[in-house]
């Protein structure tokens, strides 16, 4: 019964929060309305929602989020220095990174994090989801970059989410 | 203090907008121009938020949110059009 009514409980909570934020209120009427939307919308689109793997370590997820936020700020100072400095000294590169994440959602998170953090933009994902192509603004040593992304972002994501590895 | 800071910020964002428009005109390729427009709408959003703080009104929030949503959809549509010559596939 519960599973039929709320096929995606997390999505319902997110919709309720979104509604309250959009109206910028904690009015009981709006909580009721947001709750109703949180029930109706997931019920209407139950077959279209992308399956999201279960979170195994909540603390790990929080620690990962904080680390990514700090890295975003740090990466921005780095990029600002590169942008304002002499452009002739930059050594841009396309780097291929082999990944062992197979789940679509987790792969999306990884590519987004890579785009937002240290001087890299993810440019393509291979058709078999085994490699991602990354463009870096300044990479004197591509192998070190691959190792850093794998240990710093990919390994924690694999631990946090319950997903099969290849 | 805010009365002095906000004009400075608006001037900085205006400089950013001029650079964006310069890139929009210079090109040289279509993706460059799409990227310039993408940056331009994000800058416009920042200007609107600053203007809201200056006038001490909350009313510009919806405009800023709509610009964010519509700009993203526009960029993705343009990129998809460049990729496949078709927006819906």
């Amino acid at each position, binding site marked *: 019964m519960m599973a039929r009514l709320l096929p995606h409980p997390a999505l319902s909570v997110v919709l309720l929060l979104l509604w309250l934020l959009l109206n910028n209120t904690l009015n009981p009427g709006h909580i009721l309305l947001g709750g109703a939307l949180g029930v109706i919308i997931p019920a209407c689109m139950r077959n279209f929602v992308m399956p999201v793997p279960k979170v195994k370590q909540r603390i790990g997820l929080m620690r990962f989020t904080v680390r990514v936020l700090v890295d975003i700020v740090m990466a921005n100072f780095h990029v600002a220095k590169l942008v304002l400095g002499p452009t002739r000294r930059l050594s*841009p590169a396309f780097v291929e990174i082999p990944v062992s994440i197979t789940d679509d959602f987790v792969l999306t998170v990884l590519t987004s994090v890579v785009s937002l953090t240290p001087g890299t933009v993810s440019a393509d994902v291979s058709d078999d989801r085994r490699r991602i192509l990354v463009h870096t603004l300044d990479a004197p040593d591509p192998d070190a970059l691959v190792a850093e992304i794998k240990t710093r972002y990919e390994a924690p994501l694999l631990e946090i989410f319950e997903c099969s590895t290849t | 203090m805010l009365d002095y800071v906000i004009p400075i910020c608006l001037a900085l964002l205006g400089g950013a907008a001029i650079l964006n428009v310069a890139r929009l005109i210079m090109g040289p390729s279509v*993706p460059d121009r799409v990227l310039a427009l993408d940056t331009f709408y994000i800058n416009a959003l920042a200007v609107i938020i600053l203007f809201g703080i200056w006038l001490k009104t909350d009313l510009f929030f919806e405009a800023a949110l709509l610009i964010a949503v519509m700009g993203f959809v526009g960029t993705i549509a343009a990129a998809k059009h460049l990729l496949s010559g078709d927006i819906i596939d």
Partner: protein
Amino acid sequence: MPIWIEVAVSLFLLFGSLFALVGAIGLFRLPDFFTRLHGPTKATTLGVGAIVLGSMIFFSSRGDGLSLHELLIMVFLFITAPVSAHMLAKAAMQQRLPRVDRTRGEPWE
């Protein structure tokens, strides 16, 4: 409004505007499309994020209770910036845009 809140808001706004300007400078002066992509996706997103944060603090301190709805803009920007950068990079690779000679590695077709 207490002075320290005003100082915090001013700092956030200045920081954000400076980073938005850095992003635009990157867009303007870097040599090829793929390097230009870096400025807007990172610097501009963080800059506008900081401005939105300043606005959030400002409207929360006016006594009408918390004003958190600016958070929506920030979350939306941080989710969408990598997606549009990814799509534009794919389009640019398909069009085989010129890249700087010293770029190492090859883009995929």
